[in-house]
Protein backbone atom coordinates (compact mmCIF):
# COMPACT_ATOMS: atom_id res chain seq x y z
CA UNK A 1 0.00 0.00 0.00
CA UNK A 2 0.97 3.56 -0.50
CA UNK A 3 0.77 6.08 2.32
CA UNK A 4 1.31 9.77 2.36
CA UNK A 5 3.14 11.18 5.35
CA UNK A 6 3.95 14.63 6.51
CA UNK A 7 7.02 15.36 8.59
CA UNK A 8 7.62 18.56 10.53
CA UNK A 9 11.22 19.52 11.20
CA UNK A 10 11.78 22.14 13.87
CA UNK A 11 14.80 23.72 15.54
CA UNK A 12 15.60 22.29 18.94
CA UNK A 13 14.27 24.45 21.73
CA UNK A 14 16.76 26.96 23.08
CA UNK A 15 18.65 27.41 19.82
CA UNK A 16 18.61 30.80 18.20
CA UNK A 17 15.98 30.99 15.46
CA UNK A 18 16.86 33.96 13.25
CA UNK A 19 14.02 33.25 10.84
CA UNK A 20 11.40 33.09 13.54
CA UNK A 21 12.80 36.23 15.07
CA UNK A 22 12.70 38.14 11.80
CA UNK A 23 9.12 37.11 11.10
CA UNK A 24 8.07 38.02 14.61
CA UNK A 25 9.71 41.41 14.36
CA UNK A 26 7.96 42.19 11.10
CA UNK A 27 4.44 41.36 12.27
CA UNK A 28 3.68 44.58 14.18
CA UNK A 29 4.28 46.55 11.00
CA UNK A 30 1.47 44.72 9.26
CA UNK A 31 -0.82 45.14 12.24
CA UNK A 32 -0.15 42.19 14.54
CA UNK A 33 1.37 43.05 17.86
CA UNK A 34 -0.17 40.09 19.61
CA UNK A 35 2.04 37.37 18.19
CA UNK A 36 5.02 35.85 19.94
CA UNK A 37 7.28 32.82 19.96
CA UNK A 38 7.42 32.47 16.20
CA UNK A 39 9.50 29.59 14.89
CA UNK A 40 10.13 28.60 11.33
CA UNK A 41 10.85 25.04 10.33
CA UNK A 42 10.33 22.70 7.40
CA UNK A 43 7.41 20.63 6.27
CA UNK A 44 8.06 17.56 4.14
CA UNK A 45 5.39 15.54 2.43
CA UNK A 46 6.22 12.16 0.96
CA UNK A 47 4.63 8.95 -0.33
CA UNK A 48 5.91 5.61 0.86
CA UNK A 49 5.10 2.24 -0.64
CA UNK A 50 5.20 -0.54 1.97
CA UNK A 51 3.30 -3.73 2.95
CA UNK A 52 1.69 -2.12 6.00
CA UNK A 53 1.14 1.35 7.29
CA UNK A 54 3.24 0.50 10.34
CA UNK A 55 6.22 -0.41 8.24
CA UNK A 56 5.78 2.66 6.11
CA UNK A 57 5.72 4.78 9.22
CA UNK A 58 8.88 3.20 10.58
CA UNK A 59 10.60 3.97 7.34
CA UNK A 60 9.44 7.56 7.41
CA UNK A 61 10.81 7.91 10.92
CA UNK A 62 14.14 6.60 9.73
CA UNK A 63 14.18 8.89 6.69
CA UNK A 64 13.30 11.84 8.86
CA UNK A 65 16.09 11.03 11.26
CA UNK A 66 18.75 10.32 8.67
CA UNK A 67 17.95 12.70 5.88
CA UNK A 68 15.21 15.21 6.54
CA UNK A 69 16.47 16.56 9.82
CA UNK A 70 19.84 17.51 11.20
CA UNK A 71 19.84 15.77 14.58
CA UNK A 72 22.46 18.13 15.96
CA UNK A 73 20.12 21.10 15.81
CA UNK A 74 16.68 19.85 14.82
CA UNK A 75 13.83 17.68 16.05
CA UNK A 76 11.17 16.13 13.89
CA UNK A 77 7.68 14.80 14.22
CA UNK A 78 5.65 12.69 11.85
CA UNK A 79 2.04 13.75 11.46
CA UNK A 80 -0.67 11.11 11.40
CA UNK A 81 -0.85 9.71 7.89
CA UNK A 82 -3.60 10.57 5.50
CA UNK A 83 -3.72 7.34 3.60
CA UNK A 84 -3.61 7.80 -0.11
CA UNK A 85 -6.05 6.10 -2.40
CA UNK A 86 -5.49 3.27 -4.81
CA UNK A 87 -2.52 1.17 -5.81
CA UNK A 88 0.98 2.42 -6.47
Amino acid sequence: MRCTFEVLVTLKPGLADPQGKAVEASLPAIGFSNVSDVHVGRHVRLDVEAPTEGEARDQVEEIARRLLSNPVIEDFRVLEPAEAEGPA
Partner: protein
Amino acid sequence: MTISTPRVGVITFPGSLDDRDALRAVETMGGEGVALWHADHDLRGVDAVVLPGGFSYGDYLRCGAIAGHAPILDDVRSFAERGGPVLGICNGFQILCEAGLLPGALIRNASLRFVCVDVFCRVETSQTPVTSELVAGEVVQIPVKHGEGQYVATAEQLRRIEDEGLVVFRYVEAGGDVSESANPNGSVDNIAGVCNGAGNVVGLMPHPEHAVDPDVGPTGGQPLFASLLTSALAGASA
Protein backbone atom coordinates in the same frame (compact mmCIF):
# COMPACT_ATOMS: atom_id res chain seq x y z
CA MET B 1 14.74 74.92 -17.86
CA THR B 2 18.08 73.44 -18.72
CA ILE B 3 18.50 69.73 -19.23
CA SER B 4 18.55 68.25 -15.79
CA THR B 5 20.33 65.19 -14.50
CA PRO B 6 17.91 62.32 -13.97
CA ARG B 7 17.49 61.47 -10.31
CA VAL B 8 17.37 57.77 -9.55
CA GLY B 9 16.37 56.60 -6.08
CA VAL B 10 17.84 53.43 -4.60
CA ILE B 11 15.93 51.99 -1.66
CA THR B 12 17.87 50.57 1.26
CA PHE B 13 16.02 47.88 3.15
CA PRO B 14 17.50 46.25 6.23
CA GLY B 15 19.78 43.66 4.64
CA SER B 16 20.16 45.39 1.27
CA LEU B 17 23.72 44.81 0.08
CA ASP B 18 24.14 46.17 -3.41
CA ASP B 19 22.50 49.50 -2.63
CA ARG B 20 25.76 51.45 -2.69
CA ASP B 21 26.77 49.63 -5.86
CA ALA B 22 23.52 50.63 -7.55
CA LEU B 23 24.01 54.26 -6.49
CA ARG B 24 27.56 54.17 -7.84
CA ALA B 25 26.39 52.68 -11.14
CA VAL B 26 23.77 55.43 -11.52
CA GLU B 27 26.42 58.06 -10.97
CA THR B 28 28.98 56.34 -13.20
CA MET B 29 26.41 56.44 -15.98
CA GLY B 30 25.73 60.13 -15.45
CA GLY B 31 22.66 60.15 -13.22
CA GLU B 32 22.19 61.46 -9.72
CA GLY B 33 21.82 58.69 -7.15
CA VAL B 34 19.39 59.35 -4.32
CA ALA B 35 19.43 57.11 -1.26
CA LEU B 36 15.94 56.13 -0.09
CA TRP B 37 15.02 54.40 3.17
CA HIS B 38 12.53 51.54 3.49
CA ALA B 39 10.73 52.99 6.48
CA ASP B 40 10.05 56.42 4.93
CA HIS B 41 6.94 57.21 2.95
CA ASP B 42 9.05 59.38 0.72
CA LEU B 43 10.54 58.88 -2.72
CA ARG B 44 12.13 62.34 -2.55
CA GLY B 45 10.82 63.27 -5.95
CA VAL B 46 13.04 60.88 -7.89
CA ASP B 47 12.48 60.14 -11.56
CA ALA B 48 13.11 56.39 -11.29
CA VAL B 49 13.33 53.89 -8.47
CA VAL B 50 15.74 50.97 -8.04
CA LEU B 51 15.20 48.18 -5.54
CA PRO B 52 18.72 46.81 -5.11
CA GLY B 53 20.13 43.36 -4.49
CA GLY B 54 20.92 41.84 -1.16
CA PHE B 55 19.22 39.78 1.48
CA SER B 56 16.49 42.02 2.86
CA TYR B 57 15.54 40.75 6.29
CA GLY B 58 18.05 37.96 5.73
CA ASP B 59 15.72 36.56 3.06
CA TYR B 60 14.31 34.64 5.96
CA LEU B 61 10.90 33.03 5.41
CA ARG B 62 11.00 33.75 1.64
CA CYS B 63 13.28 36.14 -0.13
CA GLY B 64 11.68 39.53 -0.45
CA ALA B 65 8.63 38.52 1.60
CA ILE B 66 9.12 40.77 4.58
CA ALA B 67 10.45 43.71 2.56
CA GLY B 68 7.39 43.41 0.34
CA HIS B 69 5.44 44.90 3.26
CA ALA B 70 7.79 47.85 3.85
CA PRO B 71 6.11 51.27 4.12
CA ILE B 72 7.92 52.65 1.09
CA LEU B 73 6.37 49.96 -1.10
CA ASP B 74 3.07 51.88 -0.97
CA ASP B 75 4.85 54.83 -2.53
CA VAL B 76 6.60 52.64 -5.07
CA ARG B 77 3.23 51.20 -5.99
CA SER B 78 1.65 54.59 -6.66
CA PHE B 79 4.79 55.77 -8.46
CA ALA B 80 4.50 52.69 -10.69
CA GLU B 81 0.80 53.27 -11.25
CA ARG B 82 1.63 56.74 -12.53
CA GLY B 83 3.98 55.08 -15.01
CA GLY B 84 7.27 55.81 -13.22
CA PRO B 85 10.17 53.53 -14.10
CA VAL B 86 10.92 50.94 -11.42
CA LEU B 87 13.79 48.44 -11.57
CA GLY B 88 14.20 45.53 -9.17
CA ILE B 89 17.58 43.83 -9.21
CA CYS B 90 17.93 40.36 -7.71
CA ASN B 91 16.49 40.80 -4.23
CA GLY B 92 14.68 43.84 -5.60
CA PHE B 93 13.09 41.59 -8.23
CA GLN B 94 12.04 39.18 -5.50
CA ILE B 95 10.54 42.03 -3.49
CA LEU B 96 8.55 43.32 -6.48
CA CYS B 97 7.16 39.81 -7.08
CA GLU B 98 6.26 39.43 -3.41
CA ALA B 99 4.58 42.83 -3.43
CA GLY B 100 2.51 41.79 -6.43
CA LEU B 101 4.04 44.38 -8.74
CA LEU B 102 5.51 41.72 -11.01
CA PRO B 103 4.16 38.33 -12.05
CA GLY B 104 5.65 35.03 -10.92
CA ALA B 105 8.01 34.21 -8.09
CA LEU B 106 11.61 33.23 -7.40
CA ILE B 107 12.55 30.08 -5.57
CA ARG B 108 15.78 28.28 -4.74
CA ASN B 109 18.15 27.55 -7.59
CA ALA B 110 17.67 24.10 -9.08
CA SER B 111 21.18 23.24 -7.85
CA LEU B 112 20.18 24.32 -4.32
CA ARG B 113 23.42 26.30 -4.29
CA PHE B 114 24.28 29.95 -4.44
CA VAL B 115 25.86 30.80 -7.76
CA CYS B 116 28.11 33.74 -8.65
CA VAL B 117 29.00 33.77 -12.35
CA ASP B 118 28.86 35.97 -15.44
CA VAL B 119 25.92 35.09 -17.70
CA PHE B 120 24.64 36.21 -21.08
CA CYS B 121 21.17 37.68 -21.34
CA ARG B 122 19.17 38.20 -24.49
CA VAL B 123 16.95 41.25 -24.65
CA GLU B 124 13.41 40.13 -25.48
CA THR B 125 11.79 43.54 -25.75
CA SER B 126 12.99 47.09 -26.04
CA GLN B 127 9.65 48.40 -24.73
CA THR B 128 10.81 48.86 -21.13
CA PRO B 129 12.68 51.60 -19.29
CA VAL B 130 15.80 49.45 -18.96
CA THR B 131 15.95 48.17 -22.52
CA SER B 132 14.87 51.20 -24.50
CA GLU B 133 18.39 51.74 -25.83
CA LEU B 134 18.78 48.09 -26.83
CA VAL B 135 17.09 46.12 -29.56
CA ALA B 136 15.35 42.82 -29.08
CA GLY B 137 17.77 39.97 -29.74
CA GLU B 138 20.83 41.81 -28.46
CA VAL B 139 22.93 39.90 -25.92
CA VAL B 140 24.53 41.51 -22.87
CA GLN B 141 26.96 39.99 -20.38
CA ILE B 142 26.13 40.58 -16.73
CA PRO B 143 26.94 38.64 -13.55
CA VAL B 144 24.40 36.81 -11.43
CA LYS B 145 24.89 36.03 -7.77
CA HIS B 146 22.00 34.46 -5.94
CA GLY B 147 20.77 31.38 -4.16
CA GLU B 148 17.12 31.85 -5.01
CA GLY B 149 16.86 32.98 -8.57
CA GLN B 150 14.83 30.24 -10.17
CA TYR B 151 11.91 31.99 -11.81
CA VAL B 152 8.66 30.08 -11.57
CA ALA B 153 5.02 30.74 -12.31
CA THR B 154 1.95 28.57 -12.71
CA ALA B 155 1.21 27.34 -16.21
CA GLU B 156 -1.58 29.84 -16.58
CA GLN B 157 0.54 32.76 -15.44
CA LEU B 158 3.30 31.68 -17.77
CA ARG B 159 1.00 31.67 -20.72
CA ARG B 160 -0.03 35.21 -19.93
CA ILE B 161 3.55 36.33 -19.41
CA GLU B 162 4.62 34.95 -22.77
CA ASP B 163 1.46 36.02 -24.61
CA GLU B 164 1.69 39.57 -23.41
CA GLY B 165 5.41 39.75 -24.05
CA LEU B 166 6.34 40.36 -20.43
CA VAL B 167 9.67 38.52 -20.60
CA VAL B 168 12.42 41.13 -20.75
CA PHE B 169 15.56 38.97 -20.54
CA ARG B 170 16.43 35.31 -21.06
CA TYR B 171 19.59 33.45 -20.15
CA VAL B 172 21.34 32.46 -23.37
CA GLU B 173 24.67 31.30 -24.76
CA ALA B 174 27.07 34.03 -25.87
CA GLY B 175 25.68 33.62 -29.37
CA GLY B 176 22.10 34.22 -28.26
CA ASP B 177 20.71 30.67 -28.15
CA VAL B 178 18.57 29.54 -25.27
CA SER B 179 20.06 26.39 -23.73
CA GLU B 180 19.98 24.49 -20.50
CA SER B 181 23.65 25.09 -19.84
CA ALA B 182 23.18 28.85 -20.20
CA ASN B 183 20.61 28.78 -17.42
CA PRO B 184 22.32 29.32 -14.06
CA ASN B 185 19.38 28.53 -11.81
CA GLY B 186 16.78 26.42 -13.61
CA SER B 187 14.41 29.30 -14.36
CA VAL B 188 11.42 28.27 -16.41
CA ASP B 189 11.95 29.08 -20.09
CA ASN B 190 15.32 30.59 -19.13
CA ILE B 191 13.55 33.70 -17.87
CA ALA B 192 16.02 36.15 -16.32
CA GLY B 193 13.78 39.20 -16.09
CA VAL B 194 10.16 40.23 -16.55
CA CYS B 195 8.05 43.38 -16.58
CA ASN B 196 4.50 44.27 -15.58
CA GLY B 197 1.69 44.68 -18.08
CA ALA B 198 2.41 48.37 -18.54
CA GLY B 199 6.10 47.67 -19.06
CA ASN B 200 7.37 50.30 -16.62
CA VAL B 201 8.19 47.94 -13.75
CA VAL B 202 11.06 45.55 -14.51
CA GLY B 203 12.74 42.92 -12.40
CA LEU B 204 15.79 40.86 -13.25
CA MET B 205 18.09 38.49 -11.40
CA PRO B 206 21.39 39.54 -13.04
CA HIS B 207 23.18 42.52 -11.53
CA PRO B 208 23.63 45.30 -14.11
CA GLU B 209 25.13 47.54 -11.42
CA HIS B 210 28.09 45.13 -11.33
CA ALA B 211 28.53 45.43 -15.08
CA VAL B 212 29.25 49.10 -15.72
CA ASP B 213 32.92 49.39 -14.69
CA PRO B 214 35.29 47.50 -17.01
CA ASP B 215 37.97 47.34 -14.31
CA VAL B 216 35.89 45.05 -12.15
CA GLY B 217 33.64 43.13 -14.51
CA PRO B 218 31.84 42.97 -17.83
CA THR B 219 30.03 46.01 -19.19
CA GLY B 220 26.65 44.60 -20.19
CA GLY B 221 24.94 46.68 -17.53
CA GLN B 222 25.83 49.99 -19.17
CA PRO B 223 23.00 50.04 -21.75
CA LEU B 224 20.51 49.08 -19.06
CA PHE B 225 21.44 52.05 -16.91
CA ALA B 226 21.69 54.32 -19.94
CA SER B 227 18.14 53.29 -20.83
CA LEU B 228 16.93 53.82 -17.30
CA LEU B 229 18.43 57.31 -17.18
CA THR B 230 16.85 58.21 -20.51
CA SER B 231 13.47 56.94 -19.37
CA ALA B 232 13.83 58.76 -16.08
CA LEU B 233 14.62 61.99 -17.89
CA ALA B 234 11.64 61.52 -20.20
CA GLY B 235 9.41 61.02 -17.19
CA ALA B 236 10.92 64.01 -15.43
CA SER B 237 10.32 66.39 -18.31
CA ALA B 238 6.86 64.97 -19.08
